């Protein structure tokens, strides 16, 4: 066993994995499941999973609202992608949608009920200056007009500094690869773009295997796992859709460890269909599990120590020590943003 991992977030995970379990929830458990789902951005997902099942009347109303909010998010995300497409069409460079926008554009199960924030796209590195100019010409502007941030992004990050559209208030993140160049892992960005799948309107999405690899890299090799439960749910859905030669492809990108961890945890938390080899969790998975489920029935973040550990780790992953020290020093001097 992996130690005590039952929490209110665990209750939500159980219902998502097996919607029939909802039948056993009492009023207090429903309140907890709803609050955790809100806090973890999984309300729309929960609503889709429970569609058609008998639930108490107030829950049914809440789920209907969540479904509608997700439908609105889907529409907005698709429209933003269309605006990006129109802006970049004259360039003729391959534009690959990533994350939530890609899931809804390709009609994947991971997109059902999903909240979608920014519009993430991947373009060839050499196309970056033209893409940047085209977006700015079409009404996007820098979200952070700050010299340090700009220099930092351009030098050390895998994306342009975020751009926001002045009329629609929506952010676009332009990536040229899926992990920062400073990270110790260097995925094969050219292969990601070359093997992307066309959607028919000129836009692309990653190949099935690369979608899983990107989601796993994002979850385990990049951030501090905040919002991680939602990301792990994405992975569970993507695994269900199937991907040929996933392990070989993951190894090609140097992300074999992250992808196998993703498979083990997606199985453990959400009952994802994975090969037998990944049905047994490892001792090293335990802290991830603790972090992913660190939420109580009032929607509060719990397990402060674990959270702090992953926060420090996220910086460690992104940067060599000397650069990290410099980054933290500059951030600290500037004070909290």
């Amino acid at each position, binding site marked *: 066993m992996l130690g005590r991992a039952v929490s209110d977030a665990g209750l939500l995970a159980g219902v998502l994995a097996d919607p029939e379990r909802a039948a056993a929830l009492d009023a207090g458990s429903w309140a907890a499941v709803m609050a955790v789902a809100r806090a973890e951005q999984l309300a729309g997902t929960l609503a889709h999973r429970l569609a058609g099942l008998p639930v108490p009347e107030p829950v049914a109303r809440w789920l209907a609202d969540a479904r509608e909010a997700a439908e609105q998010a889907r529409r907005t995300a698709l429209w933003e992608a269309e605006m990006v497409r129109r802006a970049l069409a004259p360039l003729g460079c391959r534009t690959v949608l990533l994350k939530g926008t890609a899931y809804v554009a390709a009609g994947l199960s991971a997109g059902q009920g999903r909240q979608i924030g920014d519009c993430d796209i991947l373009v060839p590195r050499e196309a970056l200056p033209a893409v940047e100019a085209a977006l700015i010409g079409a009404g996007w*502007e*820098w*979200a*952070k*007009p*700050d010299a340090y941030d700009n220099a930092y992004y351009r030098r050390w990050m895998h994306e342009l500094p*975020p751009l*926001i559209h002045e*009329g629609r*208030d929506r*952010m676009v993140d332009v990536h040229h690869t899926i992990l920062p160049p400073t990270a110790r892992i260097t995925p094969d960005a050219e292969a990601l773009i070359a093997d992307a799948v066309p959607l028919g309107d000129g836009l692309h999405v990653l190949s099935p295997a690369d979608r899983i690899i990107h989601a796993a890299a994002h979850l385990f090799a990049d951030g501090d796992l905040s919002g991680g439960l939602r990301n792990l749910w994405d992975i569970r859905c993507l695994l269900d859709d199937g991907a040929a030669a996933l392990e070989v492809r993951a190894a090609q990108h140097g992300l074999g460890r992250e992808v196998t961890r993703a498979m083990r945890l997606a199985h453990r938390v959400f009952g994802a269909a994975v090969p037998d080899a990944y049905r047994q969790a490892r001792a090293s998975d335990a802290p991830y599990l603790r972090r992913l489920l660190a939420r109580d029935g009032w929607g509060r973040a719990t397990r402060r120590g674990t959270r702090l550990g992953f926060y420090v780790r996220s910086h460690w992953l992104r940067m060599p020590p000397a650069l990290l020290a410099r980054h933290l020093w500059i951030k600290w*001097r*500037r*004070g*909290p*943003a």
Partner: protein
Amino acid sequence: MTDQPSDPPVPTRRRVLAFGAVGASAVVSIRPALAQTAGSVLTCQIAVPDRRGAAVAADGSVVPAGTKGAFPGVATPFTGEQVKRALAGGQLPGTTWESNQAYLKYIRRLQRGQGGFTCFASLQMPRG
């Protein structure tokens, strides 16, 4: 109003149609109103600028402290109420006419992701 898509109203035949002057506007888009999010104005605050040890130039941009002609950052953030009054033609507390203008320009330039942006957005009416 019905829920069904409808054809645009058919213009009367040979009606006079004006194109409007260059520079005039014929399209106003309704934006989400965080404004009136009851009470949000009450307690939010905006630091000017959103980092220590920087100053605000006359055009509202953030510049290093000590830049000639720039105004030092304010020690205590402004409250939503103070900013709201100033945007309506009043003055931020403890400012001169010039520094008030510079700070307000800074606030108007706040973007999503910056400290104080949500507060500022909640003070804003949508364009229109």
